[in-house]
Each structure stands twice: as C-alpha cells, then as structure tokens.
C-alpha cells in the first residue's frame, strides 16, 4: 500500500519535470519573444530586454534556472500583464475546474443510466437511439457544437445567455457543449462493461436468490462494471480540461484555457509555462485519485 503511494508520487515528479522540459523547449524553438514584445523598438532596446530576460544565456542554463524557479512556484512575470504568472493562472483555475466538473457530472449522470438501460434492453429502439447519439457526439467538434447550441438556445429560443460568466444560466451551454464531447465514450464503456458482467454466474446467482432486478444491477453488476468506467472517466477529465480551452473561447468564459490561448498568441512564455504546469498538475492529481478509487473499488489491488 505504502510502496504503491510512493511509486505514484515519484511518477508524479517525473511527469512534471518532463512537462516543464517540453514546454520550455517548444516555446524557445518557436520564435524570438523580444521582437514580439517590442516589434518596432530600436535594436538597442531589444538587446537590453534580451539581457534583462536572460534570453542570451545557453538554453540548458535557462532551463535549470527555470526548473529551480518552478519548484518555488515562481514562473516569472507575464510579459503582457506585467504581473507574476502563476497567480494569474491560479486566479482562473476555479472557473475551468467548475466547468470541467459540471461537464463530467452531467456526462456521468447521462452515461450511467443510459448505459445500463441500453445494456439491459439490448437492440431495443432506445439502444439504437443511444448509438446514434454516441455517433453524433463523437463526430462533432467542440467549437461547432458550442456555436450550434448558441444559435439554438440563445439566438432562436432565447432561453439562455449567449456568453459570459455572470449568472448560473451562463454555465449551462458550456457544460452541455463539453458534456456532448465526453458522454458518448463513457456511455459506451458503461454499456459494454455492463454487458460483460450481466450474464456472469454471480449475477445469475443473485437473481436466482430472488433479489430484485434493480438491486442486482446496482449493487452487484454496476460495482464490478465501474472499474473501467473510473479509468476512462479519469482520462476523460484530462480531455475535458483541454476541451475547456475551446469552450472557454467560444463562450467567453474567463478561465485558464482562454488565458493560455491568448498567451500562446503573444508568446507570453511565463503564462504558457505556468498554465501547462497547472494543467499537468491537475491531470496528475486526477489520475492519482483514480488510482485511489481503484483501490477502494477493487479489493484485489489492496491485497496484492
């Protein structure tokens, strides 16, 4: 149990160093930030900025410095905002997390019951309908879904605001948009793992004992079918965060993703680096939680 935890923590550290190394190098290869910060400035001013920012030092030195600062949570000042980068990112984190969690909750609320029903009533009209929805959901790009939802609910029906983040109603469309992206796969997983367990001996035994069908499904079948669901949901959460980047732009949601997209356009290194770091951190933490859930759900792992 303890070794398991230690192994996970070590893996976490390795992943984070890897992530910082990748962001650091990609950004430095892609261009000269100085000419972007001051496109029209005389060369002397640019040279001064280059020295001040340390862009003249060899890359390994720049990276070591960067890594040491990262450990202290210091990503430097945003070139654009002229303020420390990490707080700017963290300030927007709750928005992105709220959006992703709502979308995940909606996905699960749809995928679990639908998955169970379609598994039990295989080849029914409902099953076919669900397959169609899965097909549509996976084929539609997030930004397109978002704009279509805006046109339908905000422009045509006028029941929801187009964009913004000033009321709870504003949360609805982005959540649905993100959920259309994550629900189909989860639904598929619930359905197929339910199909796998539903005809196993122990389920039949439970039925034979005269336990109610509802109880058999929820207490016996679902718990065992939940393992793959947990894995996939964990992975999906990471995808939701990246999906949130697009969703935030379409719906003008003041989250982390939008901040990072803007920063990439402006070659605002510190924000991009802090942002990617925080994203990676969230994903690692989610995966860690998934591992813990596994241990809870599957006693075999605890024993091993």
């Amino acid at each position, binding site marked *: 149990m303890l070794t398991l935890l230690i192994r996970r923590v070590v893996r976490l550290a390795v992943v984070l160093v890897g992530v910082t190394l990748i962001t650091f190098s990609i950004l430095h290869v*892609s*261009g*000269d930030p100085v*000419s*972007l910060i*001051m*496109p*029209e*400035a*005389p*060369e*002397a001013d640019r040279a001064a900025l280059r020295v001040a920012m340390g862009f003249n030092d060899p890359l390994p030195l720049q990276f070591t410095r960067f890594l040491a600062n990262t450990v202290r949570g210091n990503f430097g000042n*945003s070139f*654009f*905002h*002229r303020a420390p980068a990490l707080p700017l990112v963290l*300030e*927007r984190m709750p928005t992105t997390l709220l959006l992703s969690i709502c979308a995940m909750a*909606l996905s699960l*609320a*749809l995928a679990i*019951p639908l998955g169970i*029903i379609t598994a039990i009533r295989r080849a029914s009209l409902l099953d076919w309908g669900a397959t169609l929805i899965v097909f549509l959901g996976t084929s539609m790009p997030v*930004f397109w879904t978002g*704009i279509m939802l*805006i*046109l339908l609910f*905000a*422009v045509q029906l*006028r*029941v*929801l*605001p*187009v*964009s*913004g*983040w*000033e*009321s*709870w*109603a*504003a949360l*609805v469309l982005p959540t*649905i948009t993100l959920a259309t992206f994550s629900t189909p796969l989860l639904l598929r997983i619930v359905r197929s793992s339910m199909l796998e367990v539903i005809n196993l001996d122990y389920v039949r035994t439970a039925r034979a004992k005269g336990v109610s069908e509802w109880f058999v499904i929820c207490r016996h079948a679902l718990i065992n079918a939940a393992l793959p669901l947990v894995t996939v949901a964990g992975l999906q959460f990471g995808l939701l965060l990246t999906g949130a980047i697009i969703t935030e*732009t*379409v*719906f*003008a949601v*003041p989250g982390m993703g*939008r*901040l990072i*997209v*803007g920063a*990439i*356009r*402006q*070659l605002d290194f510190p924000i991009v680096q802090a942002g990617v770091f925080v994203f990676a951190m969230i994903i690692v933490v989610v995966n860690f939680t998934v591992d813990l859930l596994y241990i809870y759900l599957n006693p075999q792992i605890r024993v091993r």
Partner: protein
Amino acid sequence: MKRWALPALVLTLVLSLPPSLHAQAKDTLTVALVSHAPTMDPHMHFERVGILVNINMFDSLLHRNTKLEFEPSIATSWKALSDTQWEFKIRKGVRFHNGEVLTPEDVKYSFDRVIDQTKKSPQYGNIRAIKEVKVVNADTVHIITDKPFPLLLERLVFFPIVPKKHIEAVGDQAFGSTSPVGTGPWKFVEWKRDQYIKLEAFDQHWRGKPAFKHLVFRAIPEVATQVAEIKTGGVDLMRNVSADLLPEFKTHPQAYISSTPILRVHYMALDMRSAPFDKRPARQAANYAIDKGTVIQKLMAGLGTQTATVVQPLAFGFDPSVKPYPYDAKKAKELLAQAGYPNGVDITLHSAFVEFRPVFEALCQMLTEVGIRTTPKMWDPGPAWNKFFQTEGKATNGYYGSWGNYSVFDADAVLHPLYHTEPGGWVGKWYTRVEGLDKLIDEARSSVDQPKRKKVYSQIQTMIREEAPSIFLFTQYDTLAISKKVQYAARGDEWLWLYDAKPVGR
C-alpha cells in the same frame, strides 16, 4: 417510468431557467472587444483594445472630430513658438473623476511618467522626441522637443492626462487596476479581467454628461459569439465585422452596419535584396499583375479603396496625382521578360495576416497567372516575423501584410517603418533598397514646415510608385455592427468615441 425522472428533471430545470441578462437597461451601452488590455493605466500599454476603453475615461490635450480634424480638448489652443517649442493653453475648471481640478502640473506629470524610462512605458517611443514639458503659468504649458517633431500634434491625440496627486497617493499598480481616474465622459466602476469593464457617466465632465449612463466593455474572443450577442441584444456594438457576415446584417431587424475607410493599408512587401525582386521590371510586373478591383469586389464586399502607393488619402502628404497601377497582365508578362524571366520565375510569399487569408491566396494566384509562380505560405501570427525577415536570402521573396499607421495621419507613419533602412527600422531595413529614399524620408521628418513636407512626400510617392518596393494594394475599412437601439458611426481612426453614441428613441 421512474428511471426517467432524473433526466427529465434536469431537462426541465435547464429549459425553465430565467432568460437572463439580455434584456438590457436602455441607458446601458455594451461593446464587445476580443480581449482586454493588461491594465487600465493609459500610459502602460499600447493595445488597441485598451486605447478604445481609455479614450472614454481620459482626455488628451487634443481630440479629433468625426472629420478627423484636430479639436481642442484639455488644451484650448496651441501654437508652435519655434521648430522645437510648442505652447498649449490648458482648459480651466476641468475636473477629474475624484473631484480634483486638473492643473498644468498634471499635464507635466503625465508626460514625465512616460519619458521616465524606469517606468518602462510602451508608449515611450511615440514621444521620445519630447525633451521637456514646462509649466509656464496656471494655464500654460510648453513642450520642448530635441529636434523638429512634425508628428507632435498627432501623438497628442492619444496621450491621456492623468491626475498627479491621485496616482502618487494610490500608486501605479492600483491606478492601473482598481482606481483609474481621468477627466473623460465615463468613470471607472468595476473591472473583471476577461469578463467586463463597467463604467458610469461622469456628471461633471466638461463637455457635459454623455447620453448613456452605463458603458460596458465585454471581452468576447470569438467573432461568431459576438455576432450571436449582437443579434440577441447582449451587445450593442462589435468591431471588425468580416465581409462574409455583411449580407446577414443588411436585412437584420436588430442591428445595422457602419463602415468607413481607415488608416490601414494592405501591401505585399518585396525583398529587394535577392532575385527576382532585385530588378525593377520584376517588381513593376508584380504590380501590374494584381487585379485590385476584383479582389476588393469579390473578397472584401467592396469595402476597400485602391491606393497608388502605401500612402493613403487620409494621411497628410497624400498626392492624388500619383495613380494606382492598373491591372494589365500583358504588360506584366512583358516586364517580367525584360527583367530576364521570359519563362517565368518561382517564388515564395509569406503571410501571417490570418483574417485575410483568401485575399493572400488570390494575390498569389494572380501573380502565378502572369508567370511569377508563387507558393503561398501562411503562418501563425506569433512567431512569424522572424521567419519573414531574418532568414537571409532563400524563400523570403516577400510577405503580405497591413500597416495601421498607429492612427497617425501622416505619411511618415507608414513610409518610415516600411521603407527606411536604418537599423532601428522595421520592414525597410530587411527588404528595401531604393537609393535616395532614406534621405527624403529623413528630410520630411525633420521639418515642421508643412508645405515643404508635402512637397517632399509628393516626390517620395512618385519615386516609390516607379521603384515599386512593394506591391501596392488597397486600404481597409473599419466595419462595425451596431444595435438599432444605438445611433453611432464608424470613424476613420478606428476609435470608439462613444460620447457621440446616442440612444434611438423608443
């Protein structure tokens, strides 16, 4: 069916939510911007989206009316005392939003904080020619420049006057985020980054109260979303409506389009250091190859004006006697043969001008048709500049872009960055090699004798039309979509001077 209860409940809840927010109060004007500037401090950024907010909160010494003529603002009158000294009379009784009266000391302080290099204002370059600002008496200020500076008045149109005492009390940081104070028509209420900036009418503004009590600038990055907002009344005004959206607005019941030529000129900069554009006939051929009229009609919904050079009608120094290159494919082929390419030539052109990608591709196709076989290369806006300019020699035959003149209505604002070869220059130092051009640009720049400058600019326009260091194209229009509840018109300087916006009676 019990198991349907939950989804049904969720659905009902979603559909029954109150139609929020779009029903706006009539005294509120909401503007969509793609983003917010990093600060409210009008001296500490140089972002268009920030300037548009700042001008409604702060006044500068001068203002420009809708005909783009200088108009008194904080300064009631001005005159040049010599080539390097200007006198400004300061308006009396102008109040800041905190109730304090504006004095010449505030004017001096405003300039000093940008000239002070430790403050690192990105606007320092605009006014670096200013050596000193002197308070002469209670209503007079002298501005002294280190050399003749013909662009001074242009630069003063956006140079907000800020309150000295207030900033010294709250500090630069707070002034830029939570307590900006100016003398403009609206005062600051609240700023939520990436969401909205809320302003409220300032009762004691010297021009009188503005028509709208509340002014809101929302940050909405996606154009399609802005369009949906304007259709539902969530936003009253949006900028940069693209040509493909215009038909939709022509018949729209709730919004209309206002469009006007602006100080932004499109051009294809040609790399004169290497073949084929080191030869003048090749550059002229490229100019004859472009059917500008068709591009404007078919790809820009008619919203563009052909230009003879990069100097355009709105700018000081424009010479209408210099005519645009006509479209003449035959002549282009002849000139190309004359340049030594009877069988044509292969080149690569670059662009990071994402919004005008179709135009870029059409231009490249037109060049290909006369034998300048062009491979178009599209780049992401960020790191692209380096690739165009700094890769010496190969594959940098030129690039397509536009120049906004930083809203300075003077030929210098486009000629110097595009064609002057001094090391501090922008495009010119990489691409342009026209003998004698640097000298003429310098000559026009170092005089405040306007008739003399005009003559030099005529000379320059004749010269570059002949030498063709670029493919000269057209000017762009600024196109706004505006709610029918609001009466307003687009301006040639791309400003949103919302003091002129009026509610339409209902």
